[in-house]
């Protein structure tokens, strides 16, 4: 009885020790640098404030109105939507197509896989500069290709029409490997027996892919769609070295718009309003994702 009591007690004290040692540092850091700045952004969005002195100039929803009527905001929204749509209809199918060819484990295939994944690991700033060179109208690869075909290609990054397609190509280059890896991991977890059985039934390769493999990796596709949408909304680091949002603010995404018109001009209220809207969009997308996930789980 006594023994049991001590064990019980030591268990209890050990539990409180672990909880006081292991949780507070993480939670403090997380709250202080992640949660509380987000709450602050929400508060700032109702004030006109430059970050110095007292925050007293309450302006209600004026900042939101300013953002929504800002003449470059609609461009930023349009561009972010372009990034999302192209990511979904070009990047993800490409990643899946490649993943289907790279599922097996062999030396050559792993090497190709690593190569395709490489751009994802490179810093956005470095990737952006590399592609700035590729697109450079005097020294880059694009004009050289144009010369080969006798065409005079424009400075793509300085052209309002070409700048977004050019950025999209970089986005696909940089991120398709990430989605490919997600698909490969999911494809590899499909049981070999299922595929073998289908094959013995005389079902062809493409039918197996379309009717068996793709339905079986549906949850991986869903998470990759989710990452793709959230990532597209938050695209910034690539834009900065590529175009800085130009020419004449035509290639801003929501975050580069936030940087240009909120951060560099120290307009905290304006920036806060953009942050809040962006955050809301992310929350909505997450809720949709979770709903879709639940629907699919109950379906199975």
């Amino acid at each position, binding site marked *: 009885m006594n023994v049991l009591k001590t*064990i019980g007690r030591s*268990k209890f*004290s*050990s*539990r409180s*020790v*672990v*909880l006081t*040692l*292991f*949780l507070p*540092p*993480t939670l403090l*850091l*997380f709250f202080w*640098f*992640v*949660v*509380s*700045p*987000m709450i*602050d*952004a929400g508060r700032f969005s109702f004030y006109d404030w430059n*970050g110095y002195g007292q925050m007293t100039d309450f302006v209600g929803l004026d900042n939101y109105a300013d953002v929504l009527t800002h003449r470059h905001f609609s461009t930023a929204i349009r561009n972010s939507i372009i990034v999302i749509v192209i990511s979904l209809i070009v990047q993800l199918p490409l990643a899946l197509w*490649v993943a*289907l060819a790279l599922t*097996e484990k*062999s030396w050559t295939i792993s090497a*190709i896989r*690593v190569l*395709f994944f*490489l751009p994802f*690991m*490179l*810093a956005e*700033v*470095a990737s952006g500069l*590399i592609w700035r*060179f*590729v697109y450079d109208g*005097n020294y880059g*690869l694009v004009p*050289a290709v144009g010369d080969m075909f006798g065409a005079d290609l424009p400075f793509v990054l300085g052209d309002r029409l070409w700048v977004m397609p050019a950025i999209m190509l970089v986005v696909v*280059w940089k991120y398709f*490997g*990430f989605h490919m*890896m*997600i698909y490969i*991991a*999911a494809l590899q977890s499909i049981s070999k027996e299922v595929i073998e059985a289908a094959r013995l039934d005389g079902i062809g*390769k493409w039918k197996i892919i379309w009717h068996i493999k793709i339905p079986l990796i549906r949850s991986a596709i869903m*998470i990759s769609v989710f990452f793709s949408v959230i990532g597209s909304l*938050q695209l910034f*680091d690539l834009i900065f070295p590529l175009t800085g949002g130009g020419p004449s603010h035509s290639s801003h995404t929501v*975050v580069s718009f936030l940087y240009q018109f909120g951060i560099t001009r120290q307009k905290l209220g304006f*920036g*806060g309003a953009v942050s809040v809207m962006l*955050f809301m969009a*992310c929350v909505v997308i*997450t809720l949709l994702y979770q709903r879709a996930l639940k629907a699919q789980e109950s379906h199975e």
Partner: protein
Amino acid sequence: MSIKKHKNLTRTNDISPMQWVSLFLVGIFVVIPLLATALGGFKTTGELRKNPFGTPASWNPMNFIEIMSDSTLFLLLLNSLLIAISTVFLSVVLSSMTAFAFAHVKFYGRSLLIRFMFLGLLFPAATAILPLFLKLRDLGLLDSHLGIILAQTAFSLSFSVLLFHNFFKEIPNELIEAARMDNCGYVRTYIYIVLPLSLPIIATVGVFAFVGSWNNFLLPLVTLNTPEKYTWPLGIMQFRGEFGADWPKILAYLTLTITPAIVFFLAAQRYIVAGLTGGAIKG
């Protein structure tokens, strides 16, 4: 052996010619910009204009030597390295402790707290960068590496805790209970039983935290003022600003800065893949 080989053969044949062609094209798409960058550093400006794709007329290493003879590059890389290592250390220690408590210690409000932590996956530093800037300013942590380390660690915590949590859940509860019956408290169980079992996941979390920190641009951009404290992404943007259209020099600089990252990636890629498959998919 021969059977195995034969199997592999038929499997490779599974990739249709059309697929090989597309793999080849995608390969070119991936490699050409990188290759042109590496070769461009050896060229002269005039040569680059006429022949941006091909090999240089002479392998003149002057650009590389010039950049490396200036100590700035090494200072930048050293700054980035120190920040990255500190971030990795803090992130691994804090997130593994928290994930252990989440996975094996029952307490009131646990599942709520877990959800709360995972909300962090939705906050990119970019959206809250202004208030974050003010936070660091009020703490006197502007223009300091410590400020960057703390903020970066905080933003990496959600993903790191997620990875550790997924891993720790798989450790059988009986093992933890048995250790505790031997009068090991939770803390000692964590140190002597759980951590030694967790080396692969520690590597994965460490690699992710390292890459995130090494590549980070926005946070150093808004917080650092002193050029001696700059990290390499800031340095490269500054270098590009200084040398404008001298592309061969910029390309040499790019080659020198991304080479360590590529070497590191090749060495660590299996941990990255493990993280993506273990964390992203099951999570």
